């Protein structure tokens, strides 16, 4: 068997957790239990999981506005996440960050980021710490196709190349930036753009967990061994709106049905692992149910959690002031 059963189970568990988590967030948002702007990761699970399953707590990731999946893949607590996303006391960020700023420093999750392109420069910093302190860790930044056009991201690529930082740049090209296609907004190809900075970069099918896993394995080893940064463009798709409630007028007729039918990374994973008889459908079904239970418990905890006290408004602006 090419992959250990543990790995296969962990991968599926995390992917189905993310999928069900996001579907539930949509439900809770529609039900009025989640304030603000929420961007869901459903459809892109294979990327976040294929990358993060190879990371430890000491490795660092920097995420985007679409950060739930990265958090879960990096091991953040579901209940604390949901409590945060609901803006309640006891959330991962005491209810002060919310979906767009969810973070968990202890787990090496440096934060979602509501500024497109905000993350990669920061991940350079995490990578610089690793390099300076002589640690064998890696920093991973997630960016989108739209984000690849932000100057901060391109500056970060160049600086990582100049300083040979252990920074793995992952570009999730879901071909959409809100309602703008990468075909229009990205002149040239992301993979070539990364390579032009002298950074090795691969392009893979982001709906195939194993393709992402193998490419990332190589990339992460490259970074850990002090060879400098590495890049990945994952060709992937977004299952839902840019934000929850997005009318998605930019979608073509039947586009979504087609995507859901033929580009669902969970279905593709299931087909592969059952086809190779690495796991059985019933095993996978059971993992689905376990994930559902965890999420149900998290939602109940989030709903039950109290509002933050008003004093919290003034706390944690500074360490000292």
């Amino acid at each position, binding site marked *: 068997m090419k992959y250990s059963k543990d790995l296969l189970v962990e991968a599926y568990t995390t992917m189905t957790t993310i999928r069900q988590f996001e579907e539930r967030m949509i439900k809770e948002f529609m039900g009025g239990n989640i304030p603000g*702007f929420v961007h869901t990761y459903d459809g892109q699970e294979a990327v976040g999981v294929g990358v993060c399953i190879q990371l430890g707590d000491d490795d660092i990731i920097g995420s985007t506005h679409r950060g739930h999946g990265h958090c879960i893949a990096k091991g953040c607590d579901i209940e604390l996440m949901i409590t945060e996303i609901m803006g309640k006391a006891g959330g991962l960020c005491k209810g002060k960050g919310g979906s767009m700023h969810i973070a968990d420093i202890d787990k090496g999750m440096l934060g979602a980021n*509501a500024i497109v392109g905000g993350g990669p420069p920061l991940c350079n910093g995490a990578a610089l710490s690793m390099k300076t302190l002589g640690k064998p860790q890696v920093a991973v930044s997630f960016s989108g196709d739209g984000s690849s056009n932000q100057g901060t991201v391109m500056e970060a690529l160049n600086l990582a190349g100049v300083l040979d930082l252990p920074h793995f740049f992952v570009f999730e090209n879901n071909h959409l930036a809100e*309602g703008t296609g990468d075909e229009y907004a990205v002149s040239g190809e992301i993979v070539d753009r990364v390579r032009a900075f002298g950074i090795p970069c691969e392009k893979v099918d982001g709906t195939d967990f194993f393709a992402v896993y193998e490419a990332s394995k190589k990339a992460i080893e490259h970074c850990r061994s002090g060879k400098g940064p590495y890049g990945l463009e994952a060709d992937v798709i977004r299952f839902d709106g840019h934000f929850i409630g997005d009318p998605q007028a930019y*979608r073509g007729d039947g586009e979504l049905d087609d995507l859901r039918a033929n580009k669902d990374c969970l279905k593709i994973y299931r087909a592969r692992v059952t086809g190779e008889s690495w796991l059985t459908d019933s095993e996978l079904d059971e993992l689905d149910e376990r994930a559902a239970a965890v999420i149900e418990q998290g939602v109940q905890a989030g709903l039950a959690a109290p509002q933050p006290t008003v004093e919290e408004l003034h706390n944690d602006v500074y360490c000292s002031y």
Partner: protein
Amino acid sequence: MSEAALSASSGKHPEKTVREAINEALHQEMERDPTVIVLGEEVAGGAGCKGSDEAYGGVFGLTKGLGPRFGRERVIDTPISESAIIGAAAGAANTGLRPVAELMFVDFIGVCFDQIFNQAAKFRYMFGGKARTPMVIRATAGAGLRAAAQHSSMLHPVLTHIPGLKVVMPSNAYDAKGLMIQAIRDDDPVCFLEHKLLYETTCPVPDEPYTIPFGEAAFAREGSDATIVALGAMVPRAVAVADKLAAEGVQCDVIDPRTTSPLDSEAIIESVEVSGRLVVVDEANPRCGFAADISSIVAEHAFGALRAPIKCVTAPHTPVPFAPVLEDAYIPNEDKIEKAVRDVLGA
């Protein structure tokens, strides 16, 4: 038709939301002047996609209809590259166009601030008066939508601080239309800040185009007992407090500067000369903020008339929190405004 005439007859005009008023202004100016263009992310929406030709018309719908009407050559969807957006607008403004660039959220000035404050704002001065930069930067501002720390800032104090920029912040649909038309026809770079919470508010708005000059404050209420200066979304709150106090026989001037740069300091000073009492209400953070700016002008130029300490009602010196209870405590509310006014009246 003059502003006065219009206001006078405003009863006859159809009710429109701030969103509709701004959208109408954009339509009318693009119709009138072929050099007016609109650019930004999703201003039409759907570029490079298989769906609708106009997927968004602006994420808040402010530019709806412009793409279909004027075409993608004049309603330009852009990549997520704010420095390139503002730079393109500024360079185009120097060379014959009147661009209206949408920044989506004013919080995004951080990734394009140089093009705003070192480039567009300074060309005319640095080049000895030879350059004209007739551009508008539209951005939504303010808290209230639970959008948290990076999507809820005001930042007008930062923009007001910069010489060379004009800064506009309408508090109602009537002003929004007249100020937007003025902003587009103005020959200087204008930052036009639209408060998220005002988009759906309505008032009578004339169908025909009209302009409201910059640097002329509006009196939302008139009274000689105290002066309340408020901006944007704070104006309706200040008015509510003034009305409540009026029921008690206390009459307040509620002054809406409408533009923070240029500023109608005369109107404020004259009001305080009469009332002797000033409360400034602003949603921005307090340090080097707009409330402090107004306070200092009065403390220097109307000191003799002051009969009480100047009170500033602002957001605290904190980022905008996500949790609704915290965000509600962050934004100045009617209770805080009322307390401040009663304090200066009591003093």
